[in-house]
């Protein structure tokens, strides 16, 4: 059967599965809609968090990104996992004890202020929209590459599906579809990785395989008998140096920048509302802690495989492309040339593909070889990061159904993340803005209706972003972490760990953090892009890493302003105290959490 037929079948089956789950898990109350009635098992929640967290970018782009960055790519691996340790120890259990529905609601109650709640809900909507736009685009891109459908048609199919299960099932529907999506995406990621690891090193565990020696089969696949018996990473380092790149396993970015970017990503992860909110859905406080562990375990399966895929794909790519006559090029090169993800120009007219350092073409038009002017360096190959995962099965000559599985996995990753983000947007509007601030007298039934309308509305806007991507979206997604780190994280941490943190400090902190961070990013990205290089940055910190500084400024201004303004009311201090203990007993009977609304 052809790749196309397999892809339609597998994508069709997974979509039918998601719809089935949505019908089975309809939401009947606001508690159901926002937090799945707090009845999700911690392991199921771990899987759902994994799918929620791992976006189209993690699935499709990350391995490719790492294979081009070498060791510096580790900042994404560490940065996008380390935040779960912070979540488990500093945030999840206390927010679960608080026991309400949204992050802005916590901020509003803890800082006894609707202004704080509105600031937080605006931050939540802003961060979530920047993030969701990339996901809808990702759905469209997967459809167009694997199913020969227009990108826009793909976006609309994805929108229709998310619309269906997000408005119908709310958090409950999203949670159980995410569990299914996690299973699809992890299988789709692991199968090609395991095959390639066996082919090159004979080790079926890719995580260990890329630290092993190349077998005789592997050497044959690489067309290089000298590679046999040498460690794969040593072979790759050697290839890199021969082509004029720095060694694959060596770092190149300034250490301070790697440090700050990693920190911003970690803290940003812990501050992203769509991740935090997942820990509101488990029955108990100890489940919230355990659930963070399960989530990270499920995420780490993919995140420890990604660098292996990166190293395998990089070695394989250089060996099957560099110094090979175009006429003898493997079929995957010609297949993917049509998508514009790889392109070749014969600069020296010898009919042989030469790959080396530098960009092969000037300008960024989609059809690289035809529409762009060659650069003067000897590199003749343009290659897109994404090809490392997308073309992997073909490079390793795996059966057609594996290729189809990768398409289904990419869609699962994009849809699950989009759904989680849309729920945050919808709950921020219906629960925090409408019920919380504007119309406190909404009945539960009306609020549920508004939640569904808001979710539907958000899906449509996200879809529009997918169809007409504003040029800046792709760049801004990476900054969502810095913005989350600089705004939410300090307010939540201090809200739990410092009883005296007050509303004046929190609001100032959030504003200072987000304005500083956004300002730095906007300056280097849009106002003065010429200075956007290590020499032009403050202390060598790139816009990607500046969220860490924004976070420090947030903490500092919170502390200073807090010193000169009145401390929080006693009820609020009692609320904070109560968050710290999973259950307090008075004469053997568990004491209920004081109602935080009394603090207003």
């Amino acid at each position, binding site marked *: 059967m052809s790749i196309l037929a397999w892809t339609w079948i597998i994508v069709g089956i997974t979509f039918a599965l998601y719809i089935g789950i949505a019908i089975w898990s309809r939401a009947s109350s606001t508690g159901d809609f926002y937090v799945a009635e707090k009845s999700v098992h911690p392991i199921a929640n771990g899987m759902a968090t994994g799918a929620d967290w791992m976006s189209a970018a993690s699935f499709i782009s990350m391995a490719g990104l790492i294979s081009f960055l070498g060791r510096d790519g580790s900042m994404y691996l560490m940065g996008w996992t*380390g935040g779960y340790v912070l979540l488990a120890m500093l945030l999840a259990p206390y927010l679960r004890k608080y026991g309400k529905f949204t992050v802005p609601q916590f901020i509003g109650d803890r800082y006894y202020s609707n202004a704080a709640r509105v600031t937080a809900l605006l931050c939540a909507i802003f961060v979530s929209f920047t993030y969701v736009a990339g996901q809808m685009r990702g759905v469209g891109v997967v459809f167009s590459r694997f199913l020969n459908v227009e990108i826009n048609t793909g976006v609309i199919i994805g929108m229709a599906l998310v619309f269906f299960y997000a408005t119908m099932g709310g958090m409950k529907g999203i949670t159980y579809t995410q569990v299914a999506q996690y299973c699809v995406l992890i299988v789709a990621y692991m199968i090609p990785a395991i095959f390639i690891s066996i082919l090159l090193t004979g080790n079926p565990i890719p995580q260990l395989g890329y630290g092993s020696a190349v077998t005789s089969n592997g050497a044959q696949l690489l067309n290089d008998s000298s590679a046999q018996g040498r460690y794969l990473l040593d072979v790759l380092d050697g290839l890199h140096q021969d082509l004029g790149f720095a060694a694959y396993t060596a770092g190149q970015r300034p250490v301070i920048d790697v440090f700050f970017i990693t920190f911003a990503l970690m803290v940003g992860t812990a501050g992203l509302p769509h991740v935090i909110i997942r820990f509101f859905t488990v029955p108990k406080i100890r489940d919230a802690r355990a659930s963070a562990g399960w989530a990270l375990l499920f995420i780490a399966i993919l995140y420890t495989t990604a660098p292996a895929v990166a190293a395998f794909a990089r070695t394989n790519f250089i060996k099957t492309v560099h110094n090979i006559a175009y006429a003898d090029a493997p079929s995957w090169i010609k297949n993917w040339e049509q998508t514009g993800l790889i392109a070749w120009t014969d600069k020296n007219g010898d009919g042989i593909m030469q790959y080396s350092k530098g960009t092969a073409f000037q300008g960024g038009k989609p059809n690289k070889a035809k529409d762009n002017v060659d650069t003067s360096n000897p590199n003749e190959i343009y290659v897109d990061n994404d090809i490392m995962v997308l073309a992997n099965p073909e490079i390793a000559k795996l059966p057609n159904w594996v290729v189809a599985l990768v398409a289904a996995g990419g869609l699962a990753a994009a849809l699950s993340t989009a759904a989680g983000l849309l729920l945050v947007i919808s709950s921020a509007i219906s629960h925090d803005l409408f019920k919380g601030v504007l119309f406190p007298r909404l009945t539960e039934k009306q609020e549920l209706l508004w939640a569904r309308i808001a979710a539907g509305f958000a899906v449509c806007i996200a879809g529009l972003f997918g169809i007409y991507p504003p040029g800046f979206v792709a760049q801004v997604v990476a900054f969502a972490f810095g913005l989350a780190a600089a705004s939410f994280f300090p307010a939540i941490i201090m809200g739990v760990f410092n009883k005296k943190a007050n509303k004046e400090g929190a609001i100032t902190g959030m504003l200072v953090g987000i304005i500083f961070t956004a300002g730095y990013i906007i300056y280097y990205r849009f106002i003065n892009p010429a200075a956007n290089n290590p020499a032009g940055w403050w202390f060598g910190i790139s816009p990607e890493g500046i969220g860490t500084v924004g976070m420090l400024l947030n903490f500092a201004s919170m502390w200073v302003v807090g010193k000169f303004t009145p401390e929080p009311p006693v009820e609020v201090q009692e609320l904070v105290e109560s968050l710290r203990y999973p259950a307090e007993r008075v004469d053997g009977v568990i004491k209920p959490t004081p109602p935080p609304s009394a603090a207003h």
Partner: protein
Amino acid sequence: MERNEKLQAYWKENLRYISILLAIWFSVSYLAGILFADHLDSLKIGGFRLGFWFANQGSEVVFVVLIFVYVSLMNRLDRKYDVHED
């Protein structure tokens, strides 16, 4: 012990666990994987240079272990101070 003192002691022990575990969290990622990665790279385990391995995989593996250690420490602490649920 009076109830209030007991709760204070529970919180203190929790903070102690958190500081120790976060110190490890910081060491494996920021120290081993970033600041001292080049020095550790002179050691090799199998085909991995050590600093590269910490940055690529080692820190993620340790992160998972740290969370489960915290979970089991806290489950015990909750019982010890009688603040466990159910």
